[in-house]
């Protein structure tokens, strides 16, 4: 950092800190945004669609694209063979022989994994062609939970790794064992954080072109960094970084970290362009986004605290297991390490033990999702704080007060350097202005009336500006030494003045709606004495032309602290150079010059002013007039990296972020005992993010983060069935809060400027993603009086936690189905058939009659004894799919028992059903009872999970109804209990 960079501090009454309306809005409100999908493509650009696995785990035996290629309008099909020929697996931060390619090459490892890509004239035709690709799979056993993945004998996803645990490290800071031994209390919590995502409304877009003349790739996409991943892509494509040109469009429809996960798709589309010899465009659709883009990392934590009699916490012991999906994809295992240096949270705790494991499962790979690593840690830590208060019978604010860090800067046990703050004051602000006492009175009154009312808190140290070296904490010191140290968080911005004195700003910040252009205009305008409207900001980033480096991009809340700071430094240099020129012309000391309203004058002598435009023009029009040695023209690029961000030291201490803000949240909820619905009565969020550059935008970040935190707390989950099927493939299944579910939080501010960033600003974008799930969960746990809660706290979960006994069915009615867990598609039932068990058994085992009773079956073709191949059309109502199926009979015990199994694949996914059929003589006929379990994976499970159980029951019941009809029985008397019921009461149905 140059000394002159820090000499200049802007006057207090400038544009910085004002709630300036956004310069971005005028275009966006007119529909004149330039999002990736809006940018015009070159004539001849083709479109593509991905073929994705319906199976959680299968060997790929054959991918036959001949029929697809024969379809008019189809230009190419990219498969694993091309990928093996033209690219390399992605590099990742841990040393493991795990291969991750941009398309599956020999195995698929999660539902939705891309395995082929069709290039066609339009997306419509490309989708037509997907239906014509024939794939032969051999399904393999799968693992979906952390417990299953680490169990002895678990199916292993990557044979060469030999285990699903792909990274493991243990850490120790201070004297944790001694602290635990000496503590009056040992209080722990076992807790899990689910998979979810912030799902931007705009999905991914990639346009790629291959240049045969030099083997280079030119890409336009809404990938937003970190640009360290540019290196990962270039290495996968086998080109120098300069031959992977990446351009970012002006506007992005939201990212929240999520668009980091585009990078494997960028490589795939590059290869498709190479194969098709034409530019290729891919617009990710919502179904593939939800199923296969990315997810926040699920985590299982055992956290224990050593607590003194007075409530002071003297040590923490974490055992964390991250569930990273089918591949460890860069920057994972970073979710475990972003918070590593700050695992002691807002508390002065000197002793810490940590065990970290990253495990793989047959699910979509995880990655950046706003809050990254924070929600996982704080959900455990802040739930534990509530438990400690409860077990000690201590007032929660008092517990916080006794444990908060008090003096700054503060070096946390594992290495984080908290730069500034006053945590106790922020809590007092929240409690005083948020009405802590009033809420307690309200709770008391509600409880007296038998209502369920609870209060929760969360205290969160909010990191910003990530240290590029923190991920290397996953390696041992020796491994790090071999790999070479990594550190820093370089930010870049360029300020230029053109020959007519117009000012432009360029920065490598790839914004996604946060208002970067507005803030940069404010900063540069203030520095140069201009109006924000005078500043033109262009944040389209071109890696072949613009200044950027590995830390560039839109993540880790790095804009306000780092990028805005770099722009401030660049503008300061421009100002200094212009001031030097003006000082000579005015014969006044440079330090005495005032820049205001587009003019430059010695302090107190505005009548002597020179115009900014004229002085700046000298640098372009008449360099000979400049001081000897002065650079002609006016353009300055500042690179800034926080000095506090070093590589991890030999004791594994790491300062993972440059700045640390603080959030204290208060939440009061009421739970409806009848429905399980959680209503937020009040939410208060107090923030200290250092100096606020634009308070309106800062509040926008808080409200947005709060809404997403609310979603994570109460609504959102990427649910999988135990069969490995993904169940949240539409926005009807993945529940994002709407305006009706999102209350308006009370927002409070403090400003403790950071001494370590150029403008004193810190990040503010992720705090509520970290604090809100914990605060709401604490409030719900308090309302219900339960120890453990699971996110999201859906009405169903809340009712389970309430645990009220269900009134039993009245005599004569039995429970229609066994108490199956959600997601398990089990069906059982019975029919009475007017034929002997022998006749029924014969019908079930005869291929001709079997073909007639299987709905939509056109005929069975024998492939082995009691094994048949068939084309079967299954579905409900208008939803139908043609399955290529195998049907097998087994365990035959004529005429009493047989096992009937079907397995098939269709355009809508894969289905497997297996069940036992029992026949008993009943009067002159037969009572047939069946018991089925079905598994459905792929698209139909992802988009139709709401209907699956009903549909499966209908299909299976249909088989036996048809059997009864076939045997010319009277209408089958299945046992739908409602019929007896309605018959008794005379009501129609």
């Amino acid at each position, binding site marked *: 950092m140059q000394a002159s960079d820090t000499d200049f501090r802007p006057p207090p009454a400038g544009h910085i800190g004002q709630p300036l309306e956004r310069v971005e809005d005028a275009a966006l409100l*007119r*529909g004149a945004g330039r999002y990736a999908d*809006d940018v015009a493509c070159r004539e001849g650009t083709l479109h593509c669609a991905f073929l994705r696995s319906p199976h959680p785990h299968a060997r790929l035996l054959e991918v036959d694209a001949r029929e697809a290629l024969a379809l008019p309008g189809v230009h190419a099909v990219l498969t694993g063979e091309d990928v093996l020929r033209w690219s390399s697996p992605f590099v990742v931060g841990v040393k493991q022989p795990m291969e991750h390619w941009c398309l599956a090459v020999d195995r698929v490892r999660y539902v939705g994994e891309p395995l082929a890509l069709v290039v066609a004239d339009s997306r419509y035709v490309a989708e037509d062609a997907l239906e014509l690709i024939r794939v032969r799979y051999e399904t393999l056993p799968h693992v979906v939970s952390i417990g299953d993945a680490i169990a002895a004998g678990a199916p292993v996803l990557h044979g060469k790794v030999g285990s699903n645990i792909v990274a493991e490290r243990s850490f120790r800071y201070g004297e944790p064992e001694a602290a635990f031994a000496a503590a009056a209390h040992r209080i722990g919590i076992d807790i899990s954080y689910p998979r979810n995502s912030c799902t931007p*409304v705009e999905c991914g877009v990639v346009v790629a072109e291959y240049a045969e003349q030099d083997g280079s790739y030119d890409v336009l996409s809404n990938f937003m960094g970190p640009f360290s991943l540019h290196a990962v892509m270039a290495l996968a494509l086998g080109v120098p970084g300069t031959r992977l040109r990446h351009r970012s469009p002006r506007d992005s429809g939201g990212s*929240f970290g999520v668009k980091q996960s585009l990078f494997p798709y960028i490589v795939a589309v590059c290869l498709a362009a190479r194969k098709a010899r034409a530019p290729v465009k891919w617009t990710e659709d919502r179904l593939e986004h939800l199923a296969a883009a990315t997810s926040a990392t699920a985590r299982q934590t055992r956290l224990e605290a050593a607590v003194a009699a007075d409530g002071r916490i003297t040590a923490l012991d974490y055992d964390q297991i991250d569930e990273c999906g089918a591949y460890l994809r860069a920057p994972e295992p970073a979710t475990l390490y972003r918070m590593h240096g700050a695992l002691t949270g807002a508390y002065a705790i000197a002793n810490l033990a940590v065990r970290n494991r990253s495990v793989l499962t047959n699910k979509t790979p995880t990655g950046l999702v706003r809050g990254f690593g924070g929600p996982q840690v704080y959900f455990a830590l802040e739930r534990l704080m509530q438990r400690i208060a409860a077990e000690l019978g201590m007032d929660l604010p008092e517990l916080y007060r006794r444990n908060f860090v008090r003096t700054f800067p503060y070096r946390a046990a594992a290495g984080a350097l908290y730069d500034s703050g006053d945590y106790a004051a922020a809590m007092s602000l929240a409690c005083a202005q948020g009405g802590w006492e009033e809420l307690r009175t309200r709770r008391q009154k509600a409880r007296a009336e038998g209502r369920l009312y609870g209060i929760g808190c969360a205290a969160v140290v909010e990191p910003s500006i990530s240290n590029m070296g923190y991920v290397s904490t996953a390696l041992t010191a020796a491994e790090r030494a071999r790999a070479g140290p990594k550190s820093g968080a370089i930010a870049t911005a360029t300020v230029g003045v053109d020959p007519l004195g117009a000012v432009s700003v360029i920065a490598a910040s790839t914004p996604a709606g946060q208002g970067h252009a507005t803030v940069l205009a404010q900063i540069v305008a203030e520095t140069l004495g201009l109006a924000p409207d005078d500043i033109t900001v262009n944040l389209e980033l071109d890696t072949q032309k613009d200044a950027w480096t590995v830390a560039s991009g839109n993540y880790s809340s790095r804009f306000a602290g780092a990028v805005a700071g770099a722009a401030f430094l660049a503008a300061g240099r421009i100002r200094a150079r212009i001031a030097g020129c003006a000082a000579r012309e005015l014969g006044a000391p440079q330090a005495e010059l005032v820049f205001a309203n587009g003019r430059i004058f010695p302090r107190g002598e505005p009548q002597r002013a020179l115009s900014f435009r004229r002085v700046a023009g000298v640098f372009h029009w008449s360099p000979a007039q400049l001081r000897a040695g002065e650079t002609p023209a006016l353009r300055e690029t500042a690179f800034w990296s926080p000095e506090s961000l070093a590589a991890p030291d030999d004791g594994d201490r790491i300062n993972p972020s440059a700045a640390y803000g603080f959030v204290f949240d208060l939440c009061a909820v009421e739970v409806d005992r009848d429905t399980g619905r959680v209503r937020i009565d009040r939410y208060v969020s107090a923030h200290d993010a250092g100096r606020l550059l634009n308070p309106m935008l800062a509040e*926008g970040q808080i409200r947005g983060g709060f*809404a997403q935190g609310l979603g994570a707390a109460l609504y959102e989950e990427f649910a999988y069935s135990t069969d490995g099927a993904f169940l949240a493939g539409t926005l009807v299944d993945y529940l994002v809060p*709407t*305006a*009706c579910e999102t209350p308006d939080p009370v927002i409070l501010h403090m400003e403790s400027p950071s001494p370590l960033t150029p403008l004193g600003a810190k990040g503010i974008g992720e705090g509520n993603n970290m604090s809100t799930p914990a605060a709401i969960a604490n409030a719900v746990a308090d309302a219900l009086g339960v120890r453990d809660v699971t996110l999201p706290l859906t009405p169903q979960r809340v009712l389970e936690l309430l645990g009220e006994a269900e009134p039993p069915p009245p005599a004569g009615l039995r429970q229609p189905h066994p108490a199956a867990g959600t997601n398990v598609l089990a069906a059982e039932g019975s029919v009475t058939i007017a034929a002997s068990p022998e006749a029924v058994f014969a019908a079930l085992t005869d291929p001709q009659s079997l073909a007639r009773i299987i709905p939509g079956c056109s005929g069975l073709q024998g492939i082995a004894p009691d094994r048949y191949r068939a084309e079967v059309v299954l579905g409900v109502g208008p939803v139908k799919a043609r399955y290529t199926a195998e049907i097998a009979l087994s365990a035959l015990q004529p005429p009493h028992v047989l096992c009937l199994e079907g397995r098939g694949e269709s355009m809508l996914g894969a289905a497997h059903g297996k069940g036992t059929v029992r026949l008993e003589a009943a009067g002159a006929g037969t009572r047939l009872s069946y018991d089925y379990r079905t598994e459905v994976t792929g698209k139909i499970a992802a988009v139709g999970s709401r209907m699956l159980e009903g549909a499966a029951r209908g299909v299976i019941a249909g088989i036996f109804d048809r059997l009864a009809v076939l045997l010319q029985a009277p209408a089958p008397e299945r046992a739908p209990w409602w019929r007896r019921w309605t018959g008794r009461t005379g009501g129609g149905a």
Partner: protein
Amino acid sequence: MKRYVAGEKHAVAFTLNGRERQGWCEPRMLLSDFLRQQLGATGTHVGCEHGVCGACTVLINDEPARACLTLAVQAEGARVDTVEGLHDGAGGLNDLQQAFRRHHALQCGFCTSGILMSCEAFLRHTPCPDEKQVREMLSGHLCRCTGYAGIVKAILEVAASRREASHA
């Protein structure tokens, strides 16, 4: 009866923001794609293509419609209005657009076009909405950036000012 044969391109014409426009498409082409790809009207955004997110909401004969749940051929001869048609009469932002800016009712702006179009229809049918009605209308749109607070404020403010203007 009019027949549009599968796989063939047919002329489709309608009035877009007051101007007659025509393009060619297969019967299966969605109105959202037709607007963006055939007519270059990229202000209407596509977010889910199953009718939930609301980003593609346009007005067809003055009533809101998901362009992703409408075939282009269904709009033949209709009046279609999109965000590009909103202005104050002199090329500037209209009162609703200005209120969105003032209340920081947009961040990434991707959902905004659809919300603005919904609001125009909503305020015509419900000139005196309360906050609950505004939120219920907005529940047909997903915004991931703002937490909706600024949007609600902007709509309530414009409803009030339009009422005042109509009484004056």
